[in-house]
């Protein structure tokens, strides 16, 4: 097992101001997940469901409120920052927006060399090889981010993440800022890299179709919780949670059609009682409105499944 997390939670406390009372927002409320070496797990959900917070918790970029993280068998939950730094070489993050993830004042060569320099490697020989691996010719070395297209910038970010030979890539919506034809190229690249390097992916996306292309496993999140988890084909072909069903039906398809889910996702500062999905659920019953939120059991968190 490469990565194992249990009971992960992140609660933000908002301070009281003259206009607002203090409140507690559970961005992530008790998530368990595990990822094998070389595996690929998709995390799917809409904005505000906590998927990006989850990524940052796993990388220990923000402090945990509760839970435990094992990486390569080692408990990293309480490691101090200095002890984390060498470990970070083995778990890397790809951002959603490659334009913001590259320092505008660093050339491509410097951006890719930075992690190598930090960890005391000689970047000269490695940087061109890394760029070649992500499909960028050598004449990109001396360009600056604002001279590159979105897809090229994301390739630079991937090369940078690969520089330290990681075992795990956490990809936070890596293609959502890209055009479809470029998205397909980047997804192809990611699939190839995973095969060649035996990388494990935690792939965060709002797009189930994209996740299907890259991942074998998927976890569907709603309001800080995993509501359904399982093999991607099984979840897509026979979704068991009503939210997963609604999510699948909302995706605009070339064939047209689809069901419209009513309402907006609830405010995490004032979550609904009972099952967090019940106000938008087509099949909710009395039991869903009251009592505790359903827990994930046999891959689905629904009283009625």
């Amino acid at each position: 097992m490469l990565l194992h997390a249990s009971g992960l939670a992140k609660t933000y406390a908002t301070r009281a101001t003259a206009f607002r009372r203090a409140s507690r927002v559970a961005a992530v409320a008790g998530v368990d997940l595990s990822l094998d070496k070389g595996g690929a797990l998709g995390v799917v959900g809409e904005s505000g469901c906590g998927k990006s917070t989850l990524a940052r918790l796993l990388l220990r970029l923000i402090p945990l409120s509760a839970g435990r993280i094992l990486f390569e068998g080692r408990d990293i939950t309480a490691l101090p920052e200095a002890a984390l730094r060498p470990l970070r070489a083995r778990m890397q993050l790809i951002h959603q927006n490659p334009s913001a993830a590259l320092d505008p004042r660093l050339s491509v060569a410097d951006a890719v060399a930075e992690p190598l320099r930090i960890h005391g490697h000689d970047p000269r020989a490695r940087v061109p090889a890394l760029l070649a691996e992500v499909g960028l010719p050598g004449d990109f070395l001396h360009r600056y981010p604002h001279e590159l297209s979105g897809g090229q910038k994301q390739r630079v970010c991937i090369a940078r993440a690969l520089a330290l030979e990681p075992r795990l890539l956490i990809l936070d919506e890596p293609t959502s800022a890209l055009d479809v034809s470029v998205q397909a190229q980047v997804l192809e690249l990611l699939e190839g890299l995973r095969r060649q390097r035996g990388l494990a992916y935690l792939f965060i996306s709002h797009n189930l179709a994209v996740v299907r292309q890259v991942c074998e496993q998927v976890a569907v999140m709603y309001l800080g919780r995993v509501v359904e988890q399982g093999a991607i084909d099984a979840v897509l072909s026979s979704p068991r949670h009503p939210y997963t069903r609604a999510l699948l039906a909302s995706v605009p398809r070339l064939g047209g059609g689809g069901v419209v889910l009513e309402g907006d996702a609830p405010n995490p500062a004032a979550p609904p009682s009972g099952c967090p999905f019940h106000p938008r659920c087509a099949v909710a019953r009395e039991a869903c409105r009251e009592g505790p939120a359903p827990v994930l059991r046999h891959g689905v968190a629904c009283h009625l499944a």
Partner: protein
Amino acid sequence: MTRKLRLAVWLLTRSFASMLGIALVVSIVTLALIGPWIVPYPDHVAGGINLANKLQPPSAAHWFGTDEVGLDILTRVIIGARVSLLVGIGITLSAALIGVPLGILAGLVGGPLREAIMRLTDLFLSVPGLVLAIALVAALGAGIVNAMIALILVWWPGYVRLAESKALSIRSEPYIEAARVAGATTTRILWRHVLPNSISPLIVKMSMDIGQAILAVASLGFLGLGARPPTPEWGAMISIARGYLPDWWWYAIFPGAFIYAAVLGFNLLGDGLRDILDPKSNRG
């Protein structure tokens, strides 16, 4: 690099104001550099009295006329550019060297340290700058060096403010998170990412501040708290010339025009630099 240079030239030449700013600044810097070798009456720089020639209107011999002791105003105004420029740049650089590290530290580290730095800054900023400078000079004693010290003490908090807000906004940029993920230490993040990305607004502010500092030194000189005659300083010259207005107008007009040109030049240059230094300003 050549493309960057051409882009910079293109951006500047598109704007009349930037071109005017550059022209003014270049002229004043050139005058300051070669002044001692081109002035018509080099012995008038140190002072002296030639009452027979006093308060002559502009003529072929004295383009800007002469002052109340018969010294050539053109000579003294050109040499005055040296004083003003040196003092203006000195004040701005020193203030930035104090303020920028404090501001970036405050923005990046946060916590009680930030509170301490920022409240001290507020304390200085809550008193009008020139009033504080006057009080300081009064305590230290009049003179050009003390005027500089006073103005540096008044000037640095502005840089703390700007550097802090810039560091705060850069701190939340994804590329800072990306650097952390790559294993960068806080020191490295500061030197490699935060500082280079906050430098452009600081350079713009510095360019504009040189003009303001020249004005402030002239003001102190005018009040008799800065350079003392016979040092050829624009503010001090106007201070004396004031007594000879309006009949002997040239005595006040020419130093005044040079102050005006210097301040305007550095301000316009700052605006032009803002366009050049923005890495995204390559429209088209």
